[in-house]
């Protein structure tokens, strides 16, 4: 066999498939923003936040982790008036989300969650992700200790379990009345994997200052609750599906609506903290105005170009961006792009930059 033949065999055995790039769905750009949101070595260390965020909202994840709680909405209040009637008059929420809305929508979403809580004072869920996904995560924090609960579709249980067997021998235990296995990564780092129930299985993993004794103690306080209790335990600032229309209306109040803009596009935004939700709303509006500018420019519609440019420039006055600006870079990216487009330059990366 010649070198050439041999090399060809090796080349053919290349496991990398270039088409994966087409399927990343912006995950590469998301990672870039995540990385750039972390401190450099010459900056003061600050806690990193896990990636429980949506798209470019990750740009400010680290900052949001230390930004504290800002109560902007009440999860357990039914929102009777969730119709957005913005500058252009948009379709009602009811027309899009069917017969349920508000609290009922949240309850329905929560039914799909494992709904585990820690029944001990001091433990507070600080990050939630997954209302719109079949898997998700919630992190509970108490001082220097964090307990992250990740859930996955139950058909993945065995493969995860088999994988954890490489971590350590499993030790049988019971968590929230479910049989579970404890895996030990190190003396301060453990995980408990619960047997599947109701279509999902949950893995709890320590983060921070733990011992096996403190882990066992907390496992005994993990309880399964009903959807209502689960929702009430969420931090109030999380924008859940039932809040989307109301919260979106607030943010959209000072944004010019792009032609044909439909607030329903925000309905699948899932659960977000205020920064992430702000990015979802402001990003959507900016994306649509940029698309409108491009369309109008191509069509030679000078008046529409002018209108789109003015709308984009107005982003400097959008309140939500100023509210977000102390926590991350999304507003800066949006303003930079808006100004460029308004000035006649449409950067090729604008969709990735904004998460359009």
């Amino acid at each position, binding site marked *: 066999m010649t070198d050439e033949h041999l*090399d060809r065999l090796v080349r053919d055995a290349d496991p990398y498939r270039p088409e994966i790039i087409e399927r990343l769905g912006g*995950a*590469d750009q998301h990672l870039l923003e995540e990385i750039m949101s972390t401190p450099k070595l010459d900056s003061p260390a600050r806690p990193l936040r*896990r990636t429980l965020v949506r798209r470019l909202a990750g740009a400010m994840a680290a900052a949001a982790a230390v930004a504290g709680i800002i109560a902007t909405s009440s999860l357990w209040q039914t929102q009777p008036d969730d119709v957005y009637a913005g500058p252009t008059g948009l379709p009602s929420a009811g027309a899009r989300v069917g017969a349920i809305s508000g609290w009922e929508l949240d309850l329905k979403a929560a039914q799909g969650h494992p709904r585990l809580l820690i029944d001990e004072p001091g433990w507070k869920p600080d990050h939630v992700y997954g209302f719109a996904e079949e898997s998700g995560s919630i992190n509970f924090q108490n001082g220097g200790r964090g307990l992250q609960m990740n859930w996955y579709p139950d058909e993945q249980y065995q493969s995860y379990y*088999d994988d954890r067997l490489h971590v350590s021998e499993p030790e049988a235990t019971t968590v929230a009345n479910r049989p579970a296995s404890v895996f030990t990564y190190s003396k301060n780092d453990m995980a408990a994997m619960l047997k599947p129930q109701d279509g999902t299985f949950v*893995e709890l993993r320590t983060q921070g200052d733990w011992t096996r004794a403190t882990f066992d103690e907390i496992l005994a306080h993990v309880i399964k609750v009903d959807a209502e209790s689960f929702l009430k335990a969420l931090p109030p600032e999380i924008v859940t599906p039932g809040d989307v229309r109301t919260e979106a209306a607030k943010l959209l109040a000072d944004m010019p609506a792009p032609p044909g803009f439909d607030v329903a596009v925000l309905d699948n935004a899932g659960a977000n903290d205020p920064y992430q939700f702000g990015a979802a709303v402001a990003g959507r509006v900016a994306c649509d105005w940029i698309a409108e500018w491009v369309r109008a420019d191509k069509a030679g519609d000078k008046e529409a170009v002018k209108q789109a440019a003015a709308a984009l420039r107005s982003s400097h006055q959008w309140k939500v961006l100023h509210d977000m600006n102390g926590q991350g870079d999304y507003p800066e990216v949006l303003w930079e792009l808006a100004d460029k487009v308004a000035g006649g330059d449409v950067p090729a990366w604008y969709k990735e930059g904004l998460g359009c």
Partner: protein
Amino acid sequence: MSSEDRFRRVYAGNFEALLAYASRRVEQPDDAADVVAETFLVAWRRSADLPPDDEIRLWLYGVARRVLANHHRGGMRRERLGERLRQRLTPAPTRDPGSEVPQRLAVRAALSRLNETDREVLLLTIWEDLQPWEVAEVIGVSPAAVRTRLSRARARLRQLVGHDRDAPGHVLDVLAVPVPEEGR
């Protein structure tokens, strides 16, 4: 150009190469996300003094190589970035285990039996399409040593593939069905 702007450009220009590099060297496809994330995180933290453009990819490969070594020792960082990328790279659990061509599996199995550095020299040459001097930069040896190792790797692989091609049945050291690895 600010170091932030340059980092964005470096990232955009090298993401796919690094994803490919990592994907080729992990057992679980989604583990590549960790390697890529960690590698670019290192680059970000040093973005003020990255090597010049014409050296950056080789430098990134070198970083990725160390990240991988750490990964294989189970020492990846706990605070992991790239969860979304990880999800995108996670294979469908129902994937048909028979979809891989047996010959490819046999070649990969043979590759896994090479000396680690020899294998890396061979793979950087064939999969990453690097010249010997470039391989030398990545793994930190002389170009002459690269040529020696390349020659040795080919000879050994030729021997192994020759044997394995006649050997029917299950191929060791190759997972036919990728499964998700630990969740962070």
